[in-house]
């Protein structure tokens, strides 16, 4: 279907430009050497988001895709300079892709391969003005791999954005076998109010009602319902708030005393939370599905037990306890039996450890631990129970997993105010997500499957 193009002379014409694109220092290109210089085999595959027909909505989709795919940290993103030289060099009216009469893109595989791309992504119009298509091409195989349909014409439309994010996640799946996390949102608390923001930092919106002080948010497994504490009249009650539908209900067992750090089980049926009273702080669980059956899982007496997090199979709960003096990470069965130390520590030496969150693949638990008076993000490998430190500069706390079990959002004060940052635990690459006001207690949603209401 696609014809091989890009005569070698054209490739050599591009040599000096391409060498400028290299991200790492490279030796001068010699005659006859291949130009696949930005891609290192065995590491991340090179990916290009192609230009193409211009329109507001398609430009917007390209920008969202490019950012999502970059933030997935799975690709070496290959970008072309915006100057005219390459355009003139190709002399086809488009930098890297040419529309054919039948609406398909004329993909210049050899050129993209020469630029180091293993995959190329194009945004194309369809005969339906409301529909746009995202196509992903295997450059080496010179084939189109998948197409995804994007519905919507308004670049700022929430449904359009989410469907582009889902397409980006599927492109990640095409390449790596596992989807990305772009179609997700992060809850956080700012000045006592609950906010949500898309995983790319767009669409920051207040979720809680005005005048209500909120605390310790979490998501249910659908990613559409926020579960959090409302502080009122000295009590803290747990609210289940379907953000899309705009409905909310109070968990009946939490109408008195101080109930917080809710965590919904992976099957959505039960919610675990901590309750503070004169008797101390203990973990309880309540059956949301049957709307009954409050159970107490820990009996603290002289210690506190809080911040439960379910393993993805729902069988275990990791939590914080002070039964050993300071705060440390323990684990128990979801029914409260078999409580034991989880993250190893040296008594009197290892700092307080808090805010555990089990990764969606079940392999790791993220938490923060005091190091020289400042919390830092740590990971524990569940199988070996080996702990490693991820951050070291400023306060870094309250980690929360992305759906890909590879990225963490956390709160950092490294630039002054507490903001949401994101780290790729594989590469260590860090970026700042929020910039306005302050932010605390983030909670990252699973992938959002259903289209959101506008």
């Amino acid at each position: 279907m696609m014809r091989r193009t890009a005569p070698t002379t054209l490739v050599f014409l591009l040599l000096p430009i391409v060498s400028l694109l290299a991200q790492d220092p490279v030796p001068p290109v010699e005659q006859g050497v291949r130009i696949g210089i930005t891609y290192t085999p065995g590491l991340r595959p090179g990916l290009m988001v192609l230009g193409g027909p211009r329109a507001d909505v398609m430009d917007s989709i390209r920008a969202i895709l490019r950012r999502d795919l970059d933030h997935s940290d799975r690709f070496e993103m290959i970008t072309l300079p915006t100057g005219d030289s390459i355009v003139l060099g190709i002399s086809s009216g488009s930098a890297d892709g040419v529309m054919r009469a039948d609406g398909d893109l004329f993909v210049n595989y050899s050129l993209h391969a020469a630029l180091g791309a293993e995959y190329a992504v194009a945004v194309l119009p369809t005969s339906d003005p409301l529909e746009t298509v995202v196509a992903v091409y295997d450059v080496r195989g010179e084939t189109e791999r998948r197409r995804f349909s994007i519905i919507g014409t308004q670049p700022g439309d929430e449904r359009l954005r989410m469907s582009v994010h889902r397409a980006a996640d599927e492109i990640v799946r095409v390449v790596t076998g596992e989807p990305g996390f772009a179609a997700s949102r992060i809850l956080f608390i700012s000045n006592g109010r609950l906010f949500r923001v898309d995983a790319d930092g767009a669409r920051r919106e207040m979720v809680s009602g005005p005048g209500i002080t909120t605390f310790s948010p979490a998501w249910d497994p659908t990613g559409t319902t926020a579960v959090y504490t409302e502080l009122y009249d000295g009590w803290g009650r747990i609210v289940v708030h379907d953000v899309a539908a705009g409905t909310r209900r109070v968990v009946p067992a939490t109408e008195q005393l101080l109930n917080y750090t809710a965590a919904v089980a992976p099957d959505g049926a039960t919610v675990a939370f901590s309750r503070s009273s004169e008797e101390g702080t203990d973990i309880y669980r309540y059956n949301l599905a049957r709307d009954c059956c409050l159970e107490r899982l820990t009996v603290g007496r002289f210690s506190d037990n809080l911040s439960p997090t379910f393993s993805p199979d729902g069988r275990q709960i990791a939590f914080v306890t002070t039964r050993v003096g300071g705060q440390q990470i323990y684990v128990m069965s979801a029914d409260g039996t078999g409580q034991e130390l989880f993250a190893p520590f040296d008594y009197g030496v290892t700092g307080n450890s808090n805010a555990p969150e089990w990764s969606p693949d079940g392999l790791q638990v993220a938490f923060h631990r005091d190091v020289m008076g400042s919390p830092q993000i740590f990971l524990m490998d569940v199988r070996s129970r080996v702990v490693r430190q991820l951050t070291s500069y400023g306060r870094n706390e309250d980690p929360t997993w992305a759906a890909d079990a590879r990225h963490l959002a956390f709160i950092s004060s490294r630039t002054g105010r507490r903001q949401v940052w994101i780290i790729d635990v594989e590469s260590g690459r860090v970026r700042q997500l929020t910039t306005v006001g302050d932010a605390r207690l983030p909670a990252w949603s699973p992938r959002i499957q259903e289209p959101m209401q506008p």
Partner: protein
Amino acid sequence: MKLKFFLIGGMAVMMVAAACGGGQPEEVAPAVDSAAIRDSLARLEAQRRAYEDSVRRAREEEDRLRREREEAERRALAMAAEVRNMVATRIHFDFDKSEIRPGTDTDVLQSKLDIMQANPALRIEIVGHCDERGSDEYNMALGMRRATAAKMWLVDRGIAEGRVTVRSMGEESPIAMGSNEEAWTQNRRDEFNVTAGGDRLTKPGM
């Protein structure tokens, strides 16, 4: 005729005389009683004055009593406010600790104990707070322990448990802004609020 004229003339004179001093004889007779009337009027006047005096005195007494009542009320309110201020005096904690520190803080709690013993209707709530350094979620639990520690100090010394409620605000409600030891020291605290029986408060020993 002459006699007739005389008589007529005489009658005329009498009539004139009568006309001139006509009321005189009648007035003379009451004039005799006027002293008594004056006396009686004076008595009435005295009675009236006495009555007015008594009314005035009663009013003055009433005013005095009212002023005294108001003064007493003002003093009671002032005392209640003073006692409430004593009740509201905060205690503070070491970092990540919920133990009551002997010294100033036990003195502060002792004065609250005395007040609660002197005012059986008084009920209070204790709110535990933390500084910003600990973990946000853990601080909720720590604040609850701080509030409970103060409550138990009072209960151990005879205050009925039902008169003291506790809650925690964690680090959500700082009174001192800033990320320094001075702010942290102020923010690690228990606050004490009157929840009932705070209108009339007696100072201990009064």
